[in-house]
């Protein structure tokens, strides 16, 4: 099968999201589409998957032009997509999830689960997925859930599979397994389109690389000869420093300390299990771990958004366990939340309003009961400029900004005042490479100014790039500690990976 996109153009008002893009996919080939956030990758995929229509250009399958009015048409034509967020019913079994929407029936309207299970098993065998059709989806690890999504597509006889940031939720081991599966599918003659911003994965997996920038296809790269630096430059449009330049840390007094912190759900589930560690002024501590091992709860406990069941949280030797978020904020805590869209910014609010979201009450911005918007606007201008927020006006709603720029607003808000503890969860999730470089630089700068930095991230690369010390979190506990990479030596990535998967750290 041969899929050709020719001259695809999509405009939103005066903004051109896709500008005359040509793309070819062939059976038995893995094509990687690289691009920053906002480069137009998702728009292009939505067009190919029938979720939106191009203003100009054609899609051809085996030379014949086709039009897709909905994903249904795309699926019929043999195109399937695994979304970044899985679309599974947690309480259904694998087989039930797979057939959902296209259930085999016997007689009048009797669900034929038996034949469904057989198909799932057959597909699983054919592509080496090792999936039990009777397992309930919510009991499965994320990596296996992703395979269920793949089976769903293969069940619908897809010849072309689109993956949108598929490795974002996986452990390093799961990523390896996933790559094996993708290669098997290639061998079986499927065409794979892989969307990602992780440069190393692209080089490892791709047969061909297409790079998208500002809605235009700016170049191709050969994975055999290209390196990450070259790809990053192509993606951003200028040379990029991929690892934050980091001098050796000079840790001073403890600024944040957790003592035996446990959090138990009302139902009895232990979410945090006697967590204890400290972060000193002038060091960056990274907490690595696969999503859902208690990181969210840990962040909430430190930020004051969740009560502890037992244990103490201290800032500069002061017990803050029962303090409100605002009181901790006043003591010098800055918090970059995990889910920026939901917790970090108010999307319909102007940039100015978002910039003062947690400090509007300070004398600088208020007078009695009133707010001084004139001061806030000027401060917002300065902060936006200082943190390189790309916008035309501070009166623009935050939702009009790209993910990276929204994150810069959150960071600017946290860092534009004297702080002692900087708590950043997933500081660069969904952020383009150019902005990652910048954000990392600012985080290291804060450390050098004596701020205690705690990074919690599921992106191991990020933890490795920034941390002076690495803690691994598994099942609500801190299970391992590693020295960060430095001039003396690199971190044993494999050991960290094993610890993230729950294995005992090789001493």
């Amino acid at each position: 099968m041969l899929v050709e996109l020719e001259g695809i153009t999509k405009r939103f008002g005066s903004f051109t999201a896709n500008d005359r893009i040509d793309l070819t996919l062939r059976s038995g080939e893995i094509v990687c589409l690289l691009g920053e956030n906002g480069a137009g990758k998702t728009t292009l995929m939505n067009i190919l998957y029938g979720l939106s229509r191009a203003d100009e250009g054609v899609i051809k399958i085996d030379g014949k032009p086709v039009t897709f009015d909905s994903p249904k048409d795309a699926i019929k034509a043999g195109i399937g997509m695994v979304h970044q967020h899985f679309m599974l019913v947690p309480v259904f079994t694998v087989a039930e999830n797979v057939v959902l929407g296209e259930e085999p029936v016997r007689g009048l309207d009797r669900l034929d689960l038996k034949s469904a299970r057989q198909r799932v098993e057959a597909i699983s065998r054919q592509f080496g997925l090792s999936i039990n059709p009777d397992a309930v989806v919510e009991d499965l690890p994320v990596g296996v859930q992703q395979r269920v999504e793949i089976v769903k597509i293969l069940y619908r006889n897809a010849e072309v599979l689109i993956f949108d940031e598929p490795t974002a939720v996986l452990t390093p081991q799961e990523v390896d397994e996933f790559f094996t599966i993708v290669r098997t599918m290639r061998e079986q003659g499927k065409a794979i389109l892989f969307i990602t911003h992780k440069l190393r994965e692209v080089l490892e997996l791709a047969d061909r690389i297409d790079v998208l920038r500002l809605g235009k296809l700016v170049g191709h790269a050969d994975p055999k000869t290209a390196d990450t630096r070259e790809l990053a430059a192509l993606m951003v449009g200028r040379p990029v420093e991929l690892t934050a330049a980091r001098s050796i840390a000079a840790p001073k007094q403890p600024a944040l300390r957790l003592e035996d912190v446990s959090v138990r759900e009302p139902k009895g589930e232990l979410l945090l299990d006697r967590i204890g560690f400290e972060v000193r002024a002038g060091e960056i501590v990274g907490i690595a771990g696969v999503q859902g091992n208690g990181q969210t709860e840990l962040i909430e406990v430190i930020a004051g958004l969740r009560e502890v069941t037992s244990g103490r949280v201290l800032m500069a030797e002061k017990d803050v366990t029962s303090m409100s978020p605002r009181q901790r904020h006043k003591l010098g805590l800055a918090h970059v939340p995990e889910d920026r869209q939901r917790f970090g910014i108010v999307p319909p609010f102007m940039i100015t309003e978002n910039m003062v979201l947690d400090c509007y009450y300070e004398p600088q911005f208020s007078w009695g009961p009133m707010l001084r918007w004139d001061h806030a606007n000027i401060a917002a201008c300065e902060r936006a400029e200082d943190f390189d927020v790309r916008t035309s006006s501070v009166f623009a709603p935050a939702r009009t900004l790209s993910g990276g720029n929204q994150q810069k607003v959150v960071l600017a808000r946290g860092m534009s005042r004297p702080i002692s503890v900087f708590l950043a969860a997933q500081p660069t999730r969904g952020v383009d490479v150019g902005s990652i470089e910048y954000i990392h630089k600012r985080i290291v700068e804060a450390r050098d100014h004596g701020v205690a930095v705690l990074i919690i991230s599921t992106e191991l690369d990020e933890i490795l790039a920034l941390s002076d010390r690495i803690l691994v979190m598994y099942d609500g506990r801190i299970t391992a500690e590693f020295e960060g990479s430095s001039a003396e030596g690199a971190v044993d990535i494999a050991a960290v990976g094993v610890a993230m998967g729950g294995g005992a750290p090789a001493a």
Partner: protein
Amino acid sequence: MSGLSSHRLLAPFRDRQASLKATLGLTAASVVLAFVAGALIMLATGIGPARIGLAYLSMLTGAFGSLYAISETLTAATPLILAGLGVAIAFRCGLFNIGAEGQLLMGGIAAVFVGFAVKGLPLAIHLPLALLAGAVAGGLWAGIAGALKAKTGAHEVITTIMLNFIALRLVDFLLTNPPIQKAGRNDPISQDVLASATLPSILDWIEPHYRLNAGIFLAVLVTGLIYWLLFHTKIGFEFRTVGASPDAARTAGIEIGRSMFLSMAVAGALAGLAGANQVLGVLGRASPGFSAGIGFDAIAVALLGRGHPVGVLLAGLLFGALEAGGRHMQSQAGIALDIVTILQALVLVFVAAPALTRAITGRLVPGRAARSKATP
């Protein structure tokens, strides 16, 4: 950094103006479409085109055609604006205040009581006191729902509806018992409000039957006050943040329970003021059902006004005009006042279904559809 007032990022954001224009256009189109649909309904019930024309014409003259008409429009609009602001401010804090009717009743009955029971005060003190009583009573009544929401998470839609029932029966009870009930009466009716607590008529020097009272000034003043509260104070910023994203508000250190309680209390105070306006300015006493559904119309007014104080003011005027014009239409064209309720409902349907409204106007006005599609 010098010359900060001319910072490049202080440039106005153009899409904002465009979206304001689109909102106004959509609302205007909704009103026009409602009238077209209303005409079709009248046609379907066997009313001839000439009478429909007469109906709309008399509605227009009844709303704006004379000083008397304008007086009636503004009289009807005043409580709608006040209570509409009450619904709007709760809405801004993410709360759906269905209880304006009950808050209005409680405010009205408290204002009546202060209006007749407190004697010997000059107007300058007595009237503000009676108004304040209305606001406080309404605020406390709504505060119950706000506190329940903040402390226990009880859904405000349920609690305000229930408080409406309680208020309705409580007021009936008070009206048939001393000290509220008028001496020598067996039917539920309150004592008359003293002259010193009456909102003065402002046009009766032209014609004695011009009913417009000083309450309209109150409504405009309060509109300005609520605008200031929402957009220029810390409390208003907290309200809006909680309404737009409770999660972000909590993360930023805003106490969302406090904001919810306060916004409900302010909302109730505004509805209470609307009730006070009715008893102190229009009716002169309280009788069963003096709220006359204003608290429910206020929900429509708040929605039509998009929760913005200025929008609520304009929507309140529109609904007031429809009501005043409707009464005139009924007497002139012999068409039941119910059509006004239908029109009000239709306006909201078209506002609530923007895609439908755009599709229809796009078909009627060629060239429009293309433009509206261009903006995602």
